[in-house]
């Protein structure tokens, strides 16, 4: 028990003293997560809207595909992107493997299905009178959809935040595509995995506390939006 208490105290000291290793890992984590979330939003929101508003007979299939993609393990995404970015891969010449960009690419693939599914759920849960009302008041299709988006904007924000939560907390993609390079691609999650295996439990715990705090803030914000 003393071990846990002293590790916790040391972890708080590391956070309070702004240890450069902790700060670097936090900064890398947040920057790649924000980058991946932005791209996931740019891709996932339109896809979720298109599927949600579609009358196509393929809609059910598209929903199943999106649900399946959401359940893909992070290491599988990492493996897939690794295949493309490795030296022998089709994009190997770009030299992106073991860079923050590679983590952003993997994170985008991870978060996009989540953003798309949450957006889809928002469209499905929207009041069915919104589009007919906008149309009968003279809107074209595009303006009517923009009105719908405005009416369900909190659901959309929730979709994007859920995507961020997924990326910031994952370890598989960051480890496989980032390579856990100190001060460059080392994220909070990969640092926790490494430092704990090296016996630096306090350091891992410090990052764990920061990660939990970020997750808590994200989820508090998410529940706040879902209540609106």
């Amino acid at each position: 028990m003393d071990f846990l208490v002293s590790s916790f105290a040391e972890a708080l000291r590391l956070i309070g003293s702004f240890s450069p290793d902790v700060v670097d890992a936090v900064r890398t984590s947040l920057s790649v997560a924000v980058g991946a979330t932005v791209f996931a939003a740019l891709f996932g929101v339109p896809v979720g809207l298109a599927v949600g508003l579609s009358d196509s007979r393929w809609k059910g299939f598209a929903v199943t595909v999106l649900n399946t993609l959401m359940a893909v393990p992070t290491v599988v995404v990492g493996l897939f992107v690794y295949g493309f970015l490795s030296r022998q891969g089709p994009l190997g010449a770009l030299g992106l493997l073991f860079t923050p960009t590679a983590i952003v690419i993997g994170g985008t693939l991870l978060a996009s299905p989540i953003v798309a599914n949450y957006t889809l759920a928002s469209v499905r849960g929207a009041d069915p009178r919104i589009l007919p009302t906008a149309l009968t008041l003279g809107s074209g299709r595009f303006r009517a959809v923009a009105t719908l988006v405005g009416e369900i904007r909190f659901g959309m924000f929730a979709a994007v935040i859920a995507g961020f939560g997924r990326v910031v907390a994952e370890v598989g993609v960051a480890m496989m595509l980032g390579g856990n390079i100190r001060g460059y691609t080392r994220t909070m999650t990969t640092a926790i995995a490494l430092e704990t295996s090296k016996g630096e439990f306090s350091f891992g715990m410090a990052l764990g506390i920061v990660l939990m705090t970020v997750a808590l803030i994200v989820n508090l914000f998410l529940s706040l939006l879902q209540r609106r």
Partner: protein
Amino acid sequence: MTELYRLRSVTKRYGSNVAVDIDALTIDSGRLYTLTGANGAGKSTLLGILAFLTPPTSGEIFYAGERIDWKSDMVRMRRRKVTLLHQSPYLFGGTVFRNVVYGLKARGIAGDAALRSVDRALETVGLDRFRDRDARELSGGEAQRVAMARALALGPEVLLLDEPLANIDRETAVLLETVISLLPSRGTTVIMTTHDPDPPAGRNVGSIVLEGGKVAAPRVSLPA
């Protein structure tokens, strides 16, 4: 009085269910029509078709002499001449003003002209002091009046009303009834569904009765 709508062999199917099956129906401009029928008779579906929101499964619709091509931009242009007011209208988030000005903005009308139209429409429904109120905090009767103002601000050629007087307080019902009855004399054709056993009658009032999706007995009371 001129012919505004002409429907020829119009059907609307949802799977195997035939919601509307009309051989022929003519609706003249500048008149008030009551649309009656039992629940499931096809009233709301017909209103959706007349509002150019629901394309029919088959048949032809002529509006002001022009055959409607449902796949062209013409539908959107015609839709701007017709406004449908639902029984339980949806009000967008934000203020009453944002709701009433919505259709004007969609038509590119802004500034003082829009402001005047909004104020006039709100005044007509007795809500001139409600412009900055949150639309989501209104009572059912107030919301119905805002929806009516939102439609009136557009000065539509046709106003389609789905049970406009149902589930609202007596005061609002009387006010809306008065507003609706004055519209045909200002050139707006009104088609309203109703379950009222004593619907508006008299000069310039037509009646369309639907039974199982078919027009049962088109009756028109001619000027005395």
